[in-house]
């Protein structure tokens, strides 16, 4: 019973905060709300018997990546979105990239509806190996990451490394050492 209440509480916070993220004019508020949403997500992971994933969520997303976001917003010093230059036309009537972005958003909504419609039997236990506590344990997670999913794991890390090198290359101006 208390599990159910906690679930709806966490899910409500996660959805509410995420909805508020896109409703904010001030990007600082958006960042704080996004962190709130991540925190609620971590709570949901704990409810799923995956404490390691929950902590990784907080350390990596809420702790590291969002600090970086905050850093950038602070340095750009953009407390308000520029309301005067804001394009008030309907997204689908805009030109070029704007319309493409709107199309992608529509596609995402369609995809989500489709995916959620396909999900059935949510109250049945998830088919998998053993109980949740074993699957979610650090030992099992590490074993799976370095055996079954080692290619995806390594490919992702190379991708991130490439992105980092690219960022450093772009940030380095001509004439710098």
């Amino acid at each position: 019973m208390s599990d159910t209440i906690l679930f709806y509480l966490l899910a409500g916070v996660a959805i509410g905060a995420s909805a508020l993220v896109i409703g904010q004019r001030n990007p600082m508020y958006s960042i704080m709300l996004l962190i709130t949403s991540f925190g609620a997500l971590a709570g949901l992971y704990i409810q799923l018997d995956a404490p390691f994933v929950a902590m990784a969520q907080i350390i990596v997303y809420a702790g590291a990546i969002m600090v970086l976001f905050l850093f950038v917003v602070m340095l750009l010093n953009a407390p308000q979105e520029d309301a005067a230059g804001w394009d008030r036309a309907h997204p689908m009537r805009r030109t070029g990239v704007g319309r493409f972005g709107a199309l992608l958003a529509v596609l995402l909504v369609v995809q989500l509806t489709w995916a959620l419609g396909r999900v059935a039997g949510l109250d049945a236990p998830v088919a998998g190996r053993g109980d949740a506590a074993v699957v979610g344990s650090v030992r099992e997670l590490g074993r799976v990451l370095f055996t079954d999913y080692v290619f995806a794991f390594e490919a992702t890390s190379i991708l991130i490394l490439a992105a980092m090198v690219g960022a450093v290359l772009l940030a380095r101006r001509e004439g710098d050492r």
Partner: protein
Amino acid sequence: MHAAGAVAFGAARRSGGPLNAVGGWWFVVGWDDMDLRTLVQLGIIGFTFFMLINASAILVLAERKIMGFMQQRYGPYLVGPHGVLQPLADILKLLFKEELRPKDADKWLFTLAPMISVTAAFAAFATVPWGAETTFFGLLETPVKLGVSDINVGVLVVFAITSMGVYGIVLAGWSSNSKYSLLGGLRSSAQMISYELAYATALASVVMLAGSLSLRDVVDAQAGYWWGFIPRWYLFLQPVGFIIYVIAGVAETNRAPFDFPEAEQELVAGYNTEYSSVRFALFPQAEYINMATMSAVATDLYLGGWHGPFLPAEYGWIWFLAKVGLILFTYIWVRWTVPRYRYDQLMQFGWKWLFPAAVLNLIVTAALVLYFNV
């Protein structure tokens, strides 16, 4: 359970031994062991919270007294005998100050920032154990663990919540709408990101040795002695890791010689320049509680926690307190002895020395753990 049965059961327990008399009394009231356990657990949580609040007061006093000693003067001496009540006077003074907020400050984040700081500081202690299992001299049938909670990813919880504390400082710097505050907040975030890496890498080495992410397991893996006289502390297996942990800990708590977020010669007071009254008080409080947490975690990870000679396990928390006190004294000692670094030196040191050293330490530890299969 009806009353007569309860009394009879209590009497049966009472006959078990003199210590059980206390337990028997609870049974007369009609409580069973689980209720009592819950009560004791709540008591432990409340006590931990209370001690953390006290820790900030005691550390303020200790800092000023030790600073005074190192600078050949008395320190605070007027309030109470030898000035020991000075923190109380400080708190009262801060409570009655006017709460100022700059006109152009962001009022929500300006208020939220100190709250985040102090909440993160308190919450980080939630998985730090501070004593062995105890039955409180026979009061309970099954022993309870001294500490707020014990979960299997305790080390990560401490690390995750500590890293949340940086938001308090960054938001304080940004929302004040003042250049000194902003610079302090920026420095703080850069510094914390840089040193968190070395900190986490040092933690990972210990976790590999212990084979568990639970702080209690890590402590219990350090019980006993090598050759009968050297305690099996990870300090002796991980001397480099310990040094890295302590240095990164100083940087994470923003203390001298790494106190750039509030470098007073350049930034007035850094991120908390615009704060006053209780809102201001929460920042130093968070800093001192973070110090206490850092020292407690260092004790659990490297100094064998509550394990030590001479004392029985029931009194292990005395060893724990002694070790934490020693580390805290070192923190204060360093602050009043070593001059502040330059900011670029701090970054260079963090990225070019501390982090590579931590990674090297991790690799060597991993290889040795694999080789000796400890």
